[in-house]
């Protein structure tokens, strides 16, 4: 590899960026280097959405061959844009200067008050409009809109006028971006060699690599085992913006196309470690609808667009939301170091708080999630203060198989938020295995939980609450199995609606 400038599409042309730190964020570049100040910084950690931009990437399955996704520019590093297209709020107006339907609808519906969050909302709505608009009078549902906006906070309006605007935009004459010139430009960029980038002036020379294949990735990592593997930047981005850490050499996995593949056979769905959470959850949910609620509530749309399932797993946070479910489903994690590939049950990856079984220079290559077992009962539930874009107090997952008599033949139970790692509940599993699933055996499993977890108390929840909820979710599992009652508030509607 030879070093070259970062190249991407911005404001109607290919731009070249060099001489800036590889750790410079897209937001810093926009605001400070380009004076494109429409995009705002609200929090610097991908939680408020004021910085939302839309990234375009080559995708033959997407309309016009261009995939458009909202992401948080405050935690994306500028070299990750190489080969992509960057759209910010300045791009949304029509070429003749009139407002785009989502902008016009926001004005007419009084969807902005202080206006600071508004550009971010516009970008989320614009991406959604570009991706989903088909015809007038087919406006998105309220749920589709609130999901689209799950990563955008507004403190002024209370959201109602924004939700109205999102629907009203659909009633206006269609305005869509011309994607062909962008795709053509991205094809041009794709012909460039893989990116190896350094700013050329930093004292601690720091290089950013964006290999185009898993084998290249493995090779670079073998040569530089101290390098930092970067995927969606939804956690590492905060090391930069909040902890002000120097990352050293960075190996970005987002350009390795074979790293982002989903392949399926009779036994498993293999999800490459570069697959975004959006795509991973789409595949998982298609196979097993019980993933749906977690998939909707996992972070926000822009975080799911950027973040990867492999990253969530490799990061190994005790409150990572995907792992309990993956663990109970019997997921195998595929690890690679140089040319060596090995796999292990996911739960064996976690040795202790932020300690994993991965060796230096080893990386998560893929996850093999067993296909849905029609005989098994799988559930995963997340409990947090807020429905969307929140970190779990407790995240639970259950996979039980029962025989015709109702006896539990296998029980796999795991929790996040209850220990230093995502952890299986061996005692609770034992309390159920071989017994008829009943209120009695469930109560025993609930008691068993108390013996195997000593949860933490922090700003998200007390230890007692975590334990009580973990136990109660076992009870919910029982009710879900044995009754037809509505069990979750999210499914409830008003008693008598006007």
């Amino acid at each position: 590899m030879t070093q070259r400038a970062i190249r991407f599409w911005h404001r109607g042309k290919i731009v070249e960026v060099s001489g800036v730190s590889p750790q410079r964020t897209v937001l810093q570049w926009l605001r400070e280097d380009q004076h494109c100040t429409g995009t705002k910084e609200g929090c610097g950690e991908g939680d408020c959405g004021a910085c939302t931009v839309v990234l375009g990437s080559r995708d033959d399955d997407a309309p016009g061959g261009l995939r458009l996704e909202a992401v948080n520019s405050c935690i994306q590093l500028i070299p990750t844009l190489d080969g992509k297209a960057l759209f910010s709020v300045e791009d949304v107006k029509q070429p003749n200067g009139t407002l785009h339907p989502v902008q016009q609808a926001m004005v007419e519906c009084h969807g902005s008050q202080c206006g600071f969050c508004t550009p971010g909302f516009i970008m989320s709505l614009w991406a959604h409009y570009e991706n989903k608009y088909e015809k007038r009078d087919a406006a998105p549902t309220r749920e589709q809109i609130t999901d689209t906006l799950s990563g955008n906070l507004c403190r002024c309006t209370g959201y109602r006028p924004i939700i109205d605007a999102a629907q009203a935009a659909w009633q206006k004459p269609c305005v869509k971006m011309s994607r062909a010139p962008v795709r053509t430009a991205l094809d041009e960029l794709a012909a460039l060699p893989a990116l190896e980038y350094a700013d050329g002036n930093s004292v601690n020379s720091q290089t950013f690599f964006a290999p185009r294949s898993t084998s290249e990735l493995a090779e670079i990592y073998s040569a530089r085992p101290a390098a930092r593997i970067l995927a969606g930047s939804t956690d590492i981005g905060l090391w930069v913006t909040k902890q002000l850490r120097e990352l050293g050499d960075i190996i970005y996995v987002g350009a390795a196309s074979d790293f982002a593949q989903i392949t399926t056979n009779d036994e498993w769905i293999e999800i490459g470690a570069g697959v975004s959470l959006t795509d991973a959850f789409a595949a998982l949910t298609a196979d097993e609808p019980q993933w749906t609620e977690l998939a909707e509530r996992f972070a926000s749309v822009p975080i799911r667009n950027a973040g990867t399932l492999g990253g969530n797993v490799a990061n190994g946070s005790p409150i990572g939301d995907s792992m309990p479910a993956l663990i109970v489903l019997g997921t195998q994690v595929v690890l690679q170091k140089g040319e060596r590939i090995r796999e292990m049950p996911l739960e064996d990856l976690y040795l202790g708080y932020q300690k994993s079984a991965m060796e230096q220079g080893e990386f998560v290559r893929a996850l093999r999630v067993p296909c849905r077992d029609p005989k098994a009962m799988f559930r995963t539930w997340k409990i947090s203060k807020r429905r969307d874009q929140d970190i779990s107090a407790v995240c639970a997952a259950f996979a039980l198989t029962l025989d015709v008599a109702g006896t539990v033949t296998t029980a796999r139970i795991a929790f996040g938020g209850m220990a230093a790692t995502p952890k299986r509940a061996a005692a609770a599993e034992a309390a159920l295995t071989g017994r008829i699933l009943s209120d009695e055996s469930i109560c025993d499993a609930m008691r068993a939980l108390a013996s195997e977890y000593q949860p933490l108390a922090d700003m998200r929840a007390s230890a007692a609450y975590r334990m009580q909820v973990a136990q109660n979710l076992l009870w919910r599992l029982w009710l879900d199995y044995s009754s037809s009652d509505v069990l979750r508030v999210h499914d409830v509607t008003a008693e008598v609606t006007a």
Partner: protein
Amino acid sequence: MNAVEPKISAPQEKAVGLSITHESAALHVSGAASYIDDLLEMQGTLHAAFGMSTCAHGRILSLNLDAVRMAAGVVSVLTAQDIPGLNDCGPIIHDDPILADGLVQFYGQPIFIVFAESHDAARRAARLAKIEYEALPALLTTAEAVAAESWVLPPVDMHKGDAEAALAAAPLRLKGHARHGGQEHFYLEGQIAYALPRDQDTMHVHSSTQHPTEMQHMVAHMLGWHSHQVSVECRRMGGGFGGKESQSAQIACAAALGVWKTGRPVKLRLDRDDDMTFTGKRHDFDFEWEAGFDQEGRILGLRLQMASRCGFSADLSGPVNDRALCHIDNCYYLDAVAVRSLRCKTHTVSNTAFRGFGGPQGMFAIEYIIDDIARHLGRDPLDVRCLNLYGDSAGDMRVMTPYGAKVEDNVAPAMIEELAASSDYATRRAAIIAFNKTSPVIKRGIALTPLKFGISFNATLYNQAGAVVHVYSDGTVLVSHGGTEMGQGLYTKIQQVVAHELGLSIGTVRLSSTDTSRVPNTSATAASSGADLNGKAAQAAAIKIKQRLTALFAQRHGVPADSVVFADDCVHSGSVRVSFAELVIEAYRARVQLWDSGFYSTPKIHWNKETLQGKPFFYYAYGASCSEVAIDTLTGESKVLRVDILHDVGKSLNPAIDIGQIEGGFIQGMGWLTTEELWFRPEGAQLGRNMTHAPSTYKIPAASDCPPVMNVRLFDNANVEETIHKSKAVGEPPLMLAFSVFFALRDACSAARGSVAPLQAPATAEAILRAIGDMSENTATGRLG
């Protein structure tokens, strides 16, 4: 900068009362509205960052800033010792250092400021300090402060009648306690100031502030300068909510100090985590009370103690607590009441103004008390609320507030009646009770709560405003006034008022930024008073110009002055019609003054802060809301299913903007009472550190939390007082509409518990589960014995 003008060209006969879009809406949606961080930076601009304490309470033994000074890009590092004038940014009492001097009083308190070539360099350098502390005992909670009698201001008592005698004579008595949390403002635009040197020892400061005049004073005092050396400007804020009333001072002062020291422009933009760590929040309150009442629930006597966590300094805690005192009645007549208000000093961030300014806190107490009484008696809480309302007829005796003012505009009874009917309250409540009998896991609840909020600053002197209206010789109009725009639509309303007065289309009237060099001695844009005060001042200025133009027109065309009408961008009398622009140029040539100032001071009000008696409020704004919720008794998760709101804005200046305030206030209040929880580390190495210092840990409502059914209507009313076009203030009151959510949750929790649920705010999932009770037979874990 591509400026986009809202294109509203159709002449409006009446600009007031229309749902005109926000004057900056087209800019907002295209990213072209400039906030301070978007302004083009001047050459040589430095960026600043604070270094903060890592100790909740302690003496600084040593402060080693060598590494900070030597860090890349650092130009200057300043401490308290470098401040030439007053090291204080306290708005009332001088107990609020800009930089801690020897003593730190909360975890995260600013100690020094770094000025560097970039924002990033300043932040990096600020973390390199080596500071040693001698730790002192830290009081973190209200309870600890009460036990230690630790106050930022002395306790205050308010009395009406003989509460003790009334309690003793009451047929029924009930004691109780309640608590609610604080609240982070979470304005989307963090605190920022950009200070620019100007010649002859003067300075111009762009400050994201609700109170430019106070920023001017603070900067001048800090530098030992006079007011005429400092000008402060704010075009718009990305949200304020009270958090940029006094809290913007520390930021403005720090930037100004850097300009004074280095002679270069200085921008200080707080990182979100720093902002949430060391800028003040809503006061959390603890209440203890005893109420005496009759069999129906009519309150006869009340003794109430309310203790607020003020933090380490007084800031605005005095007036916040005074307003809390003046709102413990809400809509209810209290015949005999004794309230003790404790203003607790704790080693936490100094709490401050937040939408409602103590009002929500005081009202929370009385709503909780009434809810308790109703549940104790087994009555529908709405019936007990109605029973206790102030009288609404002229001859009614039940009109005197605990602070000696009469309630003369009471529309609460009518509003409750209307809302109870339109929301189908009684039918739904019965359906919910039936539902709860058969639903083991999900329980529902419903509540209908009213609100009454006093409009005017408690301190009479702040109830004044000025404005300047320029009519330029081409017939266009520029208005400057003392109010600030934080998204609430004040500029739009002022634009409407002036356009209306001069008969102009909206686009002809423009608002300038708010600048202390254009209108001096302004009050904070606070207390919901922005449009009331500045609207009247701008109207007064416009009227003066209009009168001169009328006289000229009457004279030129030989028509009586009282026949002259300004409308449709023209001036008319009968069949004579001249365009406004033509008349203006004619006036200019005739040497008629085409600009003027206006001034307004609220009439009728007076307040004795020693006796806590008087008429502090010009009038009251009212509202009522009905919320239905569901809770999950296994996890404590909740959802607001439907809300119906009826709110009183008098005759609305702009219904769309007013509804925006109502809905936004409601959701913000809902956040305060549900998911927004501040958590300070209670022990260990980081004792007292606010761990909820970012949106990842502090959860304001998101789009999916907006109730799926939300029916909001304006109550058909006109202000009985002569306010601007008979409108009423709208900024703060709607926040308190959210009480219905909290009390609906309590209703659901009580249904789950089978008895009165001691739910406290914020009603997080954990608080809800705790209120239901672990040991109840109705809960899953209760079965474990």
